[in-house]
């Protein structure tokens, strides 16, 4: 079993599960966002891992034709995905700020109690 070789993939799975668990198990909205970020980061690492080629260097064109390059495409994709992730986090935090203004709390259970009380 060459599981050490797949070290980064094991980390991806670990981070993914950690993030996912945090989203589901935590009632604090900011902690949920942190969980979401960890979850997304694991996917970034997944993409970056697949771009790595043994012995590959940074994909900047060189004169030497024997140079092996890392695949730059996953990097570009993940750059886009990071931007999307930042936008999502910003929007989520903005929502949390407004939820805090409207409810005076960012705990899911308290918000639920306040809502069912007002119905």
């Amino acid at each position, binding site marked *: 079993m060459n599981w050490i070789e797949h070290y980064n993939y094991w980390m991806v799975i670990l981070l993914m599960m950690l993030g996912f668990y945090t*989203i589901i198990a935590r009632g604090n909205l900011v902690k949920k966002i942190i969980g979401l970020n960890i979850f997304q980061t694991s*996917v970034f690492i*997944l*993409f970056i891992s*697949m771009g790595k080629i043994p012995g590959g260097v940074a994909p900047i064109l060189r004169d030497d034709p024997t140079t092996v390059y890392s695949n730059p495409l996953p990097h570009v994709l993940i750059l886009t995905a990071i931007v*999307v992730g930042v936008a999502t986090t910003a*929007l989520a935090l903005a929502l949390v700020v407004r*939820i805090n203004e409207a*409810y005076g709390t960012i705990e899911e259970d308290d918000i639920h109690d306040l809502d069912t009380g007002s119905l």
Partner: protein
Amino acid sequence: MSAPSTAITLANLATHYPALQIVLPLVTAPLVVLLRGTRLVWLIAFAVTLACLGIAVDLYAQVLQQGEISYAMGGWAPPVGIEYRVDRFNGLMLILICAIAAVVLPFARTSVEKEVADNRLSLFWAAWLLCFTGLLGIVITGDAFNVFVFLEVSSLSTYALIACARDRRALTSAFQYLIMGTIGATFILIGIGLLYMLTGTLNMADLAERLPAVTQARTLNAAFGFIVVGCSLKLALFPLHLWMPNAYAFAPSAVTAFIAATATKVSIYVMLRFFYTVFGAEFSFGSMPLGEVLMTLSIIAMFSGSLVAIYERNVKRMLAYSSVAQIGYITLGISLATTSGLAAGMLHLINHAMIKAGLFMAMGAVVYRLGSCRLDQLSGLGKQMPWTMAAFVAGGLSLIGVPLTTGFVSKWHLASAGFGAGLPLVPVAILASSLLAVIYVWKVIETAYLRAPLENATPVKEAPISLLIPMWIMVAANFGFGIQGTVIWQAVQQAAVQLTGGV
């Protein structure tokens, strides 16, 4: 390698329609933020939507004449560059999205004045246009990663649109939707990543060519699973629909009418595109137990959605649960894995968009006058707002599937596709679930027409004409396409044949 010349002149404008379809609303969105005057902003948004509708109709006409359109974005040839591809299926979807937007926008103009704070209006329209851009982009693109990007463009703007409502519960629903939606989109991203790992390409047509060589790989099964679950979250398939009822109930009414009719439908489109174009029907329904799983979940959705709708006191939430059930009908058609089942699913996809847009607009008009859509407050509204409630009744009839309505046409075809696939239980399930729809629609009708107005309620006037006209256009479409049932049916049949590769 350099990009070939892509100079846009007036003469070759029509060849750039696939790009303009996306670029027009995308560029207008920031413009709208800069222009603060609300009246002008709305006019620009409406003009852009009409232009997009014109483009979509022209693209579809081109497809009918010359077959599929492939457009190389920025002149970079696929599979390296991003390809925009229009065929009979997404051509129809483009028209559907643009037409719904064009009808709902005039409604939204009046409706959001009451439901959204004045100082946010220009931002609201910018988010609306971005959402519109994202939805069109998902449909038109032929690149798997591009789907993810546009999915997030439309989703992020949808979360913002929902949070625009004055009710504070809109904020928590938007947050909940954001969490679930992001998980869904990230799942799709993982799936796309795994596909790229296997094949080294992101272009859908190219993926379809390379995937048959690797059908034995476990990675492919994982990719398929991630994409199916991600799409199911986005399209609110039972049991992943939990974000939907609150999001629909507390969003501004016009937003509900727009996203209920388009956003979930576009997610279904994405799922179908992956099933048929990328993975291929043989893998999706043959190697994977997709048909069985999808059918079970669809039938549970049809009944659980309708049952919950019966006990719901808030009419917008009731309609949202009814959407869960109706999405079950669509996926039921798909799960039959036959061309006629697929066509029936597509037909219901289009028809349900028209039905729900009309119903949510009717409820939007009620909210405009009453400030609420709780069932008990609707008492006696049939006399006070006769046109609005008549539109609701008409839409409700179509939802149930009474003859002469679009709802009847699509349920008829779904039932016969079920018979055709040798599953006589399918028509029975459709009929039984429709009977449940009768109950919840009747509850609204009974409250509005047969009960006296509440004693302490202030009498209300009929909704303004600017709300009634869009609503009745949708009702007219429901009956028009119901009586002329073959128009859309033929179009979706051709689309289904094309998607399944003429099988």
